[in-house]
């Protein structure tokens, strides 16, 4: 039989539901009733407008958002939170740092720069040391997310190419916020046991579009890198293009090699999958192919790895940075970590022990690297020299509307359209 109290059950639902929504979050809802963005006219935006986008022709001196920490600040007991790319530091070096300062180092990783930035901006990760690319420094500083470095605590900066401290890099003149971590170029990594050096050298970027390697081609799953490579392949040097036609042609080119040659978008294609034999040719950062030697299966010699880089001036070159976010709970320890990574011995060990990414140290000479067998002879072209920085192309931060064009092109690629 029908229960007369059914009516009150429904009433209960409405009342309870209404109360549960209204009571606890009433204040929050009222606060949310003002239109976000409209409440802070020019507040945060203006800081960014004051700092122009940095280029080699327009180097930028970043404003000091606060004072650096005192040079006699006590060393904190840690732990040190390092927010870094995946597989981008040698564990032995981290261990050495832990032993020297008797602290724990917690490493959190990201797979692409967008992910890394989003989590720092949202506060999901509160690192002591963060490893961004130059294109993000301006926006990080404008948002007060980085703290200036205390130069007295980083004496090892003298080990680094002078250009990084005097006058300092174009994106951070006077190195107020950053020191270089590693330097690298863009090129084509390949299996020398499957393709001849001469064949790759003759094809250049075109190797990544060659149907002979169908199913064995890897491109980076990173919009800035892969679209820029496609621009170079299409014969333009405009790697920071703002021209819709150039961007569209690059998009078409990437789609073509995906559709016709089953090229794959990966992030570990060069350092892990190429040595395993999954790929024959791959778009590569030079550090990835040097690091690939530690991923080779037993019994496979390092001479199977090859790296082609176009003549100077026809590829891109860049460096990654070590920075200290403003949220750092152990800023003095973070300074010590940065100084430690710029130590000749430790920084070189990080490069030659496992990471494969080269720091811009005065002491590192291309000839000796190959002579000592640190870099296989077949990868000589993966060694970066100061000379290359003067000639090669630099990927810059793109204005947000242009960046959106690049992203839209990438969305189309990822949607398999």
């Amino acid at each position, binding site marked *: *039989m029908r*229960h*007369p*109290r059914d009516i*009150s*059950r429904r009433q*209960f*639902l409405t009342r*309870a*539901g209404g109360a*549960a*929504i209204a009571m606890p*979050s009433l204040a929050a*809802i009222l606060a*949310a*009733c*003002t*239109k*976000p*963005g409209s409440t802070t006219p020019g507040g*945060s*935006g203006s800081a*960014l407008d004051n700092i122009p986008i940095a280029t080699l022709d327009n180097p930028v001196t970043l404003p000091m958002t606060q004072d650096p920490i005192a040079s006699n600040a006590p060393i904190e007991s840690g732990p040190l939170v390092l927010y870094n790319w995946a597989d981008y530091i040698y564990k032995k070096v981290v261990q050495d740092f832990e032993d020297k300062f008797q602290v724990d180092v917690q490493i959190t990783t990201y797979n*692409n720069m*967008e*992910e890394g*930035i*989003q989590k720092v*901006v*949202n506060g999901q990760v509160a690192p002591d040391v963060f490893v961004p690319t130059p294109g*993000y420094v301006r*926006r990080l500083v*404008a*948002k007060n997310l980085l703290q200036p470095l205390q130069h007295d605590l980083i004496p090892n900066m003298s080990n680094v190419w002078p250009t990084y401290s005097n006058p300092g890099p174009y994106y951070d003149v006077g190195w107020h916020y950053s020191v270089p971590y590693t330097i690298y170029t863009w090129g084509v990594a390949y299996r020398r046991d499957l393709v001849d050096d001469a064949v790759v050298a003759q094809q250049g970027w075109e190797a990544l579009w060659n149907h002979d390697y169908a*199913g064995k081609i890897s491109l980076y799953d990173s*919009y800035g890198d892969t679209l820029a490579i496609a621009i170079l392949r299409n014969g333009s040097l405009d790697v920071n293009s703002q021209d819709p036609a150039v961007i569209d042609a690059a998009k078409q080119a990437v789609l073509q090699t*995906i*559709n016709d040659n*089953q090229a*794959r*978008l990966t992030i570990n294609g060069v350092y892990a999958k190429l040595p395993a034999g999954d790929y024959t040719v791959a778009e590569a950062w030079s550090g990835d192919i040097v690091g690939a030697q530690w991923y080779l299966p037993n019994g496979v010699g390092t001479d199977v790895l090859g790296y082609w880089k176009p003549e100077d001036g026809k590829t891109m070159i860049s460096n990654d940075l070590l920075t200290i976010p403003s949220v750092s709970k152990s800023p003095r320890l973070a300074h010590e970590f940065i100084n430690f990574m710029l130590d000749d011995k430790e920084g070189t060990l990080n490069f030659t022990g496992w990471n494969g990414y080269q720091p811009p140290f005065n002491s590192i000479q291309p000839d000796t690297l190959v002579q000592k067998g640190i870099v296989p002879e077949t990868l000589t072209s993966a060694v970066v020299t100061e000379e290359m920085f003067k000639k090669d192309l630099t990927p810059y931060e793109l204005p*947000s509307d242009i*960046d*959106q064009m690049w*992203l839209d092109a*990438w*969305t*189309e*690629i*990822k*949607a*398999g*359209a």
Partner: protein
Amino acid sequence: MPEIATETTAPVGQEQAEEPRRRRRRRRGDPGTSDERSGVWYPRWYWPSFIAPGTIALIFLFVLPFYVVFSVAFGTVDFNNFGTAVPYYAPWWWSFHTFNGTLQQFYAGSHIYQDPLFRTFEYVIAASIICLVVGYAVAYYTARFATKYKGLILILLVSPFWISYLMRIYAWQGLLDTDGPINVILGPFGFRNTNFLEGKPITIILGLVYGYIPFMILPIYASLDRIQESLLEAGRDLGGSGAQTFWRVTLPLSRPAILAGIVIVTLPMFGDYYTNDLLGSTKTSMFGNLISQQTEATAGSTRAASLVLILSVIVLIPMMYYLRETKRQVEQA
């Protein structure tokens, strides 16, 4: 419970007057009249309160998050802050700029949106049909013929859940590799060195079936197991062949379970993106991949939320059908 019926149909004044008397009587252990002995008195809020945990969970885990999705979709992004989302929580500020733009691109036949959507439908329908056919057969066998192995089969069905989905899909990567066991087995049939992982629809459908088929088997098994033997015997007694009995007795009785299974299986499949992330490529991008890619991209959250809303509406259509069907069945019963 006739006792409560008399209580509520009685005039209010009388009811209030009666209550203390009844309570006193219970405390004394007085069995009372035959009417009252059958039940215990409960306060008004007692039974409705049972639904409160569900209501609260629904509000905090569905209504509020979904409202945030609306607020993000109808909000904007802050290009001065790395393109992070600026949700508009107040409906009177809602801006439909991104949402309309996304919708227009849909109608305009933009491949970015349409291709993954059509692909998703293709894969989900194919995978659901395979799940249903294979799942029904397994459930039927388990319920009717497994006898003493019933428990074992059920444990085996559930056992894959002891290992993380990620690990199991990585295992599939090894199996489907160009030099993996599947290629070796299929070798003699002319499939030598097939790259199943280069973005083949068949691989994605396999992944979906593999991931979701237990959710199809279990409800169907539960329903088949509950069908009374006597009903089937009656079918046979009335001259039906085995096939006819199945067609006219077993199948109709398991219809609600089939519908439930399909809903349980298809809804998550529509939003699935990791199967393609791990077994496919951009050539097999599904709608979920599109959303996931937009959430990762700079300034993409508004568009991602718009796509979520569009997908919800699309998924709502089969869901409405399911609700109507179940309602009809309840009314028939």
